[in-house]
């Protein structure tokens, strides 16, 4: 898919909360052997006063700082998440108000499991690309939910990124094209009033993550007439360190192309924020002319693939806001599993 007029990322900002819990602390609480192989070393956890809204606000402020746009020029604020603080009341209006984009702005929360953030990116691209807006803000942010004791508890993390889309003249990275691939696949779901999502066991993996990521990625490469070696960097949704590497290898991307964006290795799976955080790690490092391949995945299921190329403006704008590395280095270890349960409000009084 290509936009009517050329569009690019005019600003980006990220957020990762400081608290971290060691995966061995979770394993010990559930009686796992100390020799158990765990998917990640530690994961990020929101502090007691943080949620998806507060994290989205900080990422959005970073995106504006790296751009030439004032907040009143932002015509849309879309927040993609599966951890809205309110069941009924948009998160996007709070974010829009906090960054000063209200009242002449379009706003909504998008839901598509881990693909909600990249769906917001597709929509923002179209909004700017059609000429309806000069700037539109797309955010993917999550304080990921996982049932205590479930294997997802080791990786379900918190964080994400915000991307301000704008005209090509303002771009830090140009969007060359995008492609979405969606089917109805029951791999992961949560019913109303339930606290934690469930897996559709046999649908996890091959028919969901791999099929959709491969189809969307191949579809975009084919449409643009490109091959993986045309790209300096590539980022995929990263529910764990294994899936992303397997899908990259199957498509023909090497470890050197994906390693700097493998944020999952350091903080776990930030759901809607995961692929967007990985992309930001590349924007923190890319030089003008570097081509970046991006493909998200969300259960339910679908993938959005984007092809981007960094512009000469990127390096000058980069230092206006904290980098992914700044947030990765800011760590506050959580002392024990009890403190973790308290912070995540998993303890309920009966």
């Amino acid at each position, binding site marked *: 898919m290509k936009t009517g007029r050329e569009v690019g990322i005019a600003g980006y900002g990220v957020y990762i909360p400081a608290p971290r819990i060691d995966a061995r602390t979770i394993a010990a609480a559930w009686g796992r052997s100390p020799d158990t192989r765990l998917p990640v070393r530690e994961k990020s956890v929101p502090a007691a006063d943080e*949620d998806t809204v507060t994290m989205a606000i900080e990422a959005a402020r970073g995106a504006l700082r790296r751009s030439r746009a004032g907040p009143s020029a932002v015509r849309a604020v879309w927040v993609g998440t599966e951890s809205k603080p309110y069941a009924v009341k948009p998160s996007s209006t709070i974010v829009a108000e906090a960054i000063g984009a209200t009242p002449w702005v379009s706003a909504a929360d998008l839901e598509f499991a881990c693909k909600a953030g990249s769906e917001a990116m597709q929509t923002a691209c179209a909004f700017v690309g059609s000429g309806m807006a000069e700037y539109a803000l797309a955010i993917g942010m999550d304080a990921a939910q996982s049932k205590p004791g479930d294997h997802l508890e080791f990786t379900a993390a918190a964080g994400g990124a915000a991307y301000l889309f704008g005209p090509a003249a303002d771009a830090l990275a140009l969007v060359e094209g995008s492609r979405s691939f969606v089917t109805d696949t029951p791999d992961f779901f949560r019913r109303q009033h339930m606290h934690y999502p469930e897996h559709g066991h046999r649908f996890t993996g091959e028919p969901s993550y791999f099929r959709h990521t491969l189809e969307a990625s191949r579809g975009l490469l084919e449409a643009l007439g490109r091959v993986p070696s045309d790209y300096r960097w590539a980022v995929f949704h990263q529910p764990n360190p294994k899936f992303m590497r397997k899908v990259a290898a199957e498509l023909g991307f090497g470890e050197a192309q994906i390693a700097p964006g493998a944020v999952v290795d350091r903080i776990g799976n930030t759901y809607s924020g995961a692929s967007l955080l990985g992309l930001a790690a590349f924007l923190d490092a890319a030089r003008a002319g570097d081509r970046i391949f991006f493909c998200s995945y969300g259960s339910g299921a679908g993938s959005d693939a984007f092809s981007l190329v960094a512009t000469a403006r990127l390096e000058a704008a980069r*230092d206006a806001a904290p980098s992914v590395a700044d947030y990765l280095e800011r760590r506050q270890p959580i002392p024990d599993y009890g403190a973790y349960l308290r912070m995540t409000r998993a303890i309920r009084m009966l």
Partner: protein
Amino acid sequence: MTVELPRYHRLRGAYYRLEGSACPACPGRYFPPRAVCPACRTAGLRMFAFCGRGTLYSFSRVLQPPRGFASMAPYAVGMVRLEEGPLISCQLADTDGVDLSIGMPVEMVTRKLRDAEEHGYIVYGYKFRPRLGRAR
């Protein structure tokens, strides 16, 4: 909470964006916003958005929190001297494991201010944390 709802809504400019007021006739800058300048008594002060950077003037740790703040305890409160001049009182964020000191650079962040009940309204507003990462 129902009584406080309109109050928090009315204060959202100050809570979310650190909007105070500036006197058109003298260098006075005020937070929270004022209607009349206490220095020169000029009325009709205009909205002024503070940049959100400052230094820690004083601080204390709260171990026995008042109602509504229990889930965040222990936490720190402080007084911050904003770059533009005013001294404001606020909660401090991300202070676990941080050696707070008078004069340290801090910056404004938006956080949950108080612990609403599960069915209640969430109050978001400004807090200050030790300044993060590279100088901006």
